[in-house]
């Protein structure tokens, strides 16, 4: 017996979880979203009566962990949990087996394998599949056919596949159902236009079922990654951004090399170093991290040493504690202080790790002066630096100069193929399709104009006490965030010319609110904008937006949503095409 079910909501919420973690503070209560997702999950679980075991697509455990703890699952008779893998399922005396998977074909094959090898041993079991974010016809067909073949890669620009846009639009509709209709929609870029169109269509389709919730968001800004290809190519220079660039943050966790975290116990010295990577959770619940995550890395050292002084001063207090009452008060603060101390130790270690690596690693926008950069890239290839770094550099040069000279481009490409292997011809092709790499045509290079009008390169970025968003890349302002900033004030009309130079249409739509839901704004009350990055956003961009939220007189609060969190490495990787080598 196989029943296929789908659930839209969980999924959207799961993908949106990301923002819940970022903005736990602020005026918008993102818990509503979490609650809605949780409710949906509970209802789904209750539909399958009796004991159950969940088989997880490993990729999903992270997002789901954000909405449901094990205890919640347990309350709904989930007795066992397994990871999805080939072969027979581990034994479990349960009535239902539920697969929580992404709709990917290769996973369907594993499920099919699980079920077929199961059938012979057990008879009266129900199998359910929960597709996140939603069911896909292809996958169902695959389950029926069980054919073997290659792997999936879905990237909007490469394949012109609008599936992810459709999910985004659906997700935004869910969001509006929970937080009220968003009266103003702005957008820039092809995908943004498509998503807005889908949203407007969906709204028409549900005409009549008026949403009666007072809108939380004043504005929705849809930004297509394609409008700003440059930003993710540069190395993020915020603390959090660098951690992600170097070690990769996934679902709020990072795995770090263990050496620096060895517990120094007295007497034992450092005999046995831990070999397992150290796994740390990173979020704003940790006071220190909240303080430094968005800082430029160069300002982190100072912040850490300041913190160290405060903590040791706090510990020194014990000498001043004379009376029993004072001692008692000191003791009561101990757990908090100890937590702060261990947090400080962790981040000091991370900062040290990063410092060792950075200088060789950083890719900055500045040195894109044609001649110098050619030699630099050439040398990097000759030294066989990592391919991704090379690709980031080459693409960056191409984007900044409205393409590369034909000769230069062919030279780079040949160098890359000769050094890293011919198979990368497909990757290069993809980069060209995505517009990251292109030959110069006769047309004018608009980038300098864009750069100057939007003040993208700031010579004197203040890393310690930033006064502009450019601090997140030590002097380069992400174009995406600058657009957001200008939208709030003085408005896009002031940069009409530049907007026309950037790829894709820009637009403004208004959604009619039912009368009575028009907000009466209190004096001095901030407006709230939901910024949706189609095609991914970097931690540095998020930091920049948070910086804007915090600037006192901005009058604007930002909530960030995205299809995924990216950095240059993960982004370029998603564009790489590696043919499978023959299996011997």
């Amino acid at each position, binding site marked *: 017996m196989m029943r296929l079910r789908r659930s839209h909501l969980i999924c959207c919420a799961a993908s949106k979880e990301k923002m819940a973690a970022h903005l736990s503070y602020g005026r918008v209560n993102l818990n509503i979203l979490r609650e809605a997702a949780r409710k949906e999950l509970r209802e789904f679980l209750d539909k399958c009566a009796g004991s159950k075991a969940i088989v997880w697509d490993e990729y999903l455990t992270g997002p789901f962990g954000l909405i449901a703890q094990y205890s919640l699952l347990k309350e709904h008779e989930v007795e066992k949990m397994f990871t999805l893998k080939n072969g027979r399922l581990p034994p479990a005396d349960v009535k239902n087996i539920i697969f929580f998977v992404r709709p990917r074909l290769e996973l369907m094959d594993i499920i099919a394998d699980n079920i077929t090898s199961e059938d012979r041993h057990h008879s009266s079991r129900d199998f359910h599949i929960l597709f996140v974010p939603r069911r896909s*016809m292809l996958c169902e067909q695959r389950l029926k056919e069980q054919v073997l073949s*290659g792997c999936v890669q879905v990237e909007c620009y490469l394949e012109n596949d609008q599936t992810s846009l459709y999910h985004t639009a659906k997700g935004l509709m869910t969001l509006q159902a929970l937080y009220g209709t968003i009266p103003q929609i702005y957008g820039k870029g092809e995908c943004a236009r*498509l998503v807005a169109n889908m949203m407007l269509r969906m709204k028409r389709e549900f005409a009549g079922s008026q949403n009666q919730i007072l809108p939380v968001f004043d504005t929705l800004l849809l930004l297509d990654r394609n409008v700003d290809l440059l930003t993710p190519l540069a190395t993020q220079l915020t603390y959090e951004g660098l951690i992600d660039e170097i070690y990769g943050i996934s679902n709020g966790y990072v795995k770090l090399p263990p050496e620096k975290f060895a517990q120094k116990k007295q007497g034992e010295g450092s005999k046995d170093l831990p070999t397992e990577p150290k796994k740390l959770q990173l979020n704003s619940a940790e006071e220190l991290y909240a303080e430094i995550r968005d800082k430029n890395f160069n300002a982190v050292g100072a912040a850490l040493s300041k913190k160290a002084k405060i903590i040791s001063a706090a510990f020194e207090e014990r000498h001043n504690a004379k009376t029993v009452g004072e001692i008692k008060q000191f003791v009561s603060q101990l757990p908090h202080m100890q937590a702060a101390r261990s947090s400080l130790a962790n981040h000091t270690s991370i900062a040290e790790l990063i410092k060792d690596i950075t200088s060789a690693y950083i890719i900055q926008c500045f040195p894109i002066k044609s001649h110098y950069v050619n030699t630099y890239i050439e040398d990097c290839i000759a030294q066989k630096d990592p391919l991704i770094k090379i690709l980031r550099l080459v693409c960056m040069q191409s984007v900044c100069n409205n393409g590369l000279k034909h000769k230069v481009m*062919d030279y780079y490409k040949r160098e890359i193929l000769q050094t890293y*292997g011919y198979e990368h011809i497909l990757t290069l092709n993809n980069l060209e399709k995505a517009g990251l790499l292109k030959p110069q045509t006769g047309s004018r290079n608009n980038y300098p104009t864009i750069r100057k009008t939007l003040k993208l390169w700031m010579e004197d970025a203040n890393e310690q006490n930033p006064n502009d968003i450019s601090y997140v890349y030590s002097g380069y302002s992400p174009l995406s965030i600058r657009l957001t900033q200008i939208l709030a004030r003085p408005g896009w009309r002031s940069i009409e010319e530049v907007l026309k130079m950037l790829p894709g249409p820009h637009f403004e739509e208004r959604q009619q609110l039912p009368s009575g839901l028009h907000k009466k704004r209190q004096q001095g009350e901030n407006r709230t904008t939901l910024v949706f990055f189609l095609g991914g956003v970097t931690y540095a961009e998020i930091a920049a937006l948070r910086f804007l939220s915090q600037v006192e007189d901005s009058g604007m609060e930002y909530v960030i949503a995205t299809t995924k969190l990216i950095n240059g490495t993960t982004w370029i990787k998603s564009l790489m095409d590696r043919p499978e080598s023959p299996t011997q």
Partner: protein
Amino acid sequence: MAFITASWNPLGDAFYRKTDLYEMSWSLRDGLRDSLVAAAPYGGPIALLREPQRRSPSSRPQLEIYSASGGTVASFPWKSGPVVQLGWTVSDELLCIQEDGTVLIYDLFGSFKRHFSMGQEVVQSQVMEAKVFHSPYGTGIAIVTSSSRFTLATNIDDLKLRRLPEVPGLQGKPSCWVVLTQDRQTKVLLSNGPELFILDNTSCTVVCPPGLSPQDGNIVHMSVSFSYKYLALLTDSGHLWTGLSTLQEKLSDVDTKKTMAPKQMLWCRRPKSQQPSVVLMWDRLLLVVGVCNETIQYPIEDPCVLVGEMDGVRIISSSNQELLQEVPLVCQDIFKIASMAPGALLLEAHREYEKSSQKADEYLREIKEQSMLGEAVRQCVEAAGHEYDTNTQKSLMRAASFGKCFLTDFSPDQFVTTCRELRVLNAVRDSSVGLPLTHTQFKQLTLQVLIDRLVYRQFYPLAIEVCRYLKIPDYQGVSRVLKHWASCKVQQKDLTDDAIARAVCMKVGDSPGVSYSDIAAKAYECGRAELAIKLLDFEARSGEQVPLLLKMKRSQLALSKAVESGDTDLVYTVVSYLKNEMNRGDFFMTLRNQPVALSLYRQFCKLQEQETLKDLYNQDDDHQELANYYVTASYREKRLEGRLSLLQSAVDEYNKAKNEFAVKTTEDEMRLLRFQRKLDDEKGAGLLGLSLQVTMETLLSLGLHKQAEQLYKDFRVPDKRYWWLKLKSLAEKEEWDELEKFSKSKKSPIGYLAFVEVCIKCNNKYEAKKYVSKVTPEQKVKAHLAVGDLEGAADAAIERRNEAEIGAVLSRCSASNSLVIERLNRARAAIAKK
């Protein structure tokens, strides 16, 4: 008002009453004589088939359908075979069970819907009797054939025929039988003479009801209550046994002294019945037998039909219709003569009040003294619900409203709801509508179903009125009505497509929850494809349009609508449908006009049908992609020859795509592969598949310098890269002489600082020093520092008079280098002076 109890008859400690429902508006020539009649409960329609057994082909019997008030709904000559039984389903469909076991289903308006058979063996042995019954599973049919076998179908919408086991000793048809639904099982209870059998799926069991002995005579009639809970058995000696249908308990045992079998026998009960009874009908007499052994007799003038309801029995004659029921307790309390119940007093108080008599106050005082005013109001409201006469309803509600004035803190909910519901009930009871529902039935039926029934009877305006009046959300109310209306409208054959489309659009507009595609589907079902397409245009959700368009074979349109919706899954659905429906050429052409669909299909092919992908690219003359396809394919090929030939195909396609760069590099790759294979064969170098750079690296580490050199030249590797490579390789292998020779082979394109640094990295300071002298002046300081020669570095820096460099050297000095420090400081001072 005073005569309200005039129609009441006492039965035990309760009362029974007959309420006039309708003067029947039909005019039946021969009354109900010789007719097969089926009337549905809950005030359902009445079907009438005159002389069903008449078989002369010249005069066909007429099948007539009436509303419960006798209004004609449909009438048509019966052209099919002889009918044994008529019955109604829960959804108001008419079942006509024929002698040959065929069951024909008609809708309320007499349109034929479908038919099915009660089994093969019936055809030979004919249906003798049939019964239609209702259970939680829907409407069922039971038949008994002339060979004395029973067949059951518990739900005609999910037909599963069950032939029940044989009944021992039964010849012909049983003397009487009923269908029971108990414990989720459907059984037949039947009698053969004095014997009683229960027949279920597997067995036939003899049963003896407690307190009924075979001496009481043969069982000639039996009846189960509306809820299947109670059973009544009548013997040929006039003995009436009542008890639970489980046959485990007897309720009563009455001798009716009637030996003639009645025409109909039914239970008459109501929820929380004080005095349930069994109603027996003969040609001229209606006998109500209470379980208390008392009886009421009503004379009958005309032949009648009894219809069992959950709270009484309807008596339909050719001229009028009455409801016989036990008077609800609350009505008894209020209207019983000399009743002192609070409700009765309140009613009296109000009556006096209207007469402007001070007695009103006395009555009120009396109720209030017992603090029963709340209860009095409640009683009046409840009783009003049970009354059929609108004047009685009004006086009760007025009394209640009057009583309410003297109460604080009394929830008006019940009063308001009852008012509303009574208005709705009075409207549907009207003879022109003909739904004589009691309040109790209405509550059981639910408002939703009532609206459905109104809609089904095509009382659209009334249904919409009701929805609006009761403020039902549009989705469940008005929209649903409009949907039905529209579905009905599209079936009107006398109207043009345009007229209908316009009418539908005007009425329905964009009412929420009305799906134009559903309406269109209906139109298509009726064979009006053009109308369906017109209607689909109004559909806002393009996703909804697709399935029907596909069904109508408008695949192009379906595809563009699917694309419009943005739902890629939907696009896939259409694409895979088209793929199966069309020939390949047309299919590809169709896709070509829909880029979104095309790219989705390409993805699908990438995963599942690589070959098709190739055809697609071919069709589009997309040589670039075709070439990429060959490249990808080449990596799946294990044999070198295969790989090379695929790469050659790629080269051909790249050529056609005018991608010179790709042609060149692909050819290079082929050349490299051949070279690698050759060396692998000769030297077992394990090179195949490595990049050019790694190949050279490997060759150098194997000491195959000549071959590396050859590649360097053949593939025009930039000097810089090759020099770096060779430098690192030689240093790593510590071939210092070779390195020196190499450094002198020509002027180094990467300078000599690289040599210094690489040597140092390989911990050979001695070798490193050899190259320090060769570096350019700008790098001198760095080179000296690299080999740790502070003096040299200082010399160079001072010579170059470069402050920054001097600083750099200084920073490397320690206290032991005081001499050097002194020199440097002096030099710095000298520069500063200038």
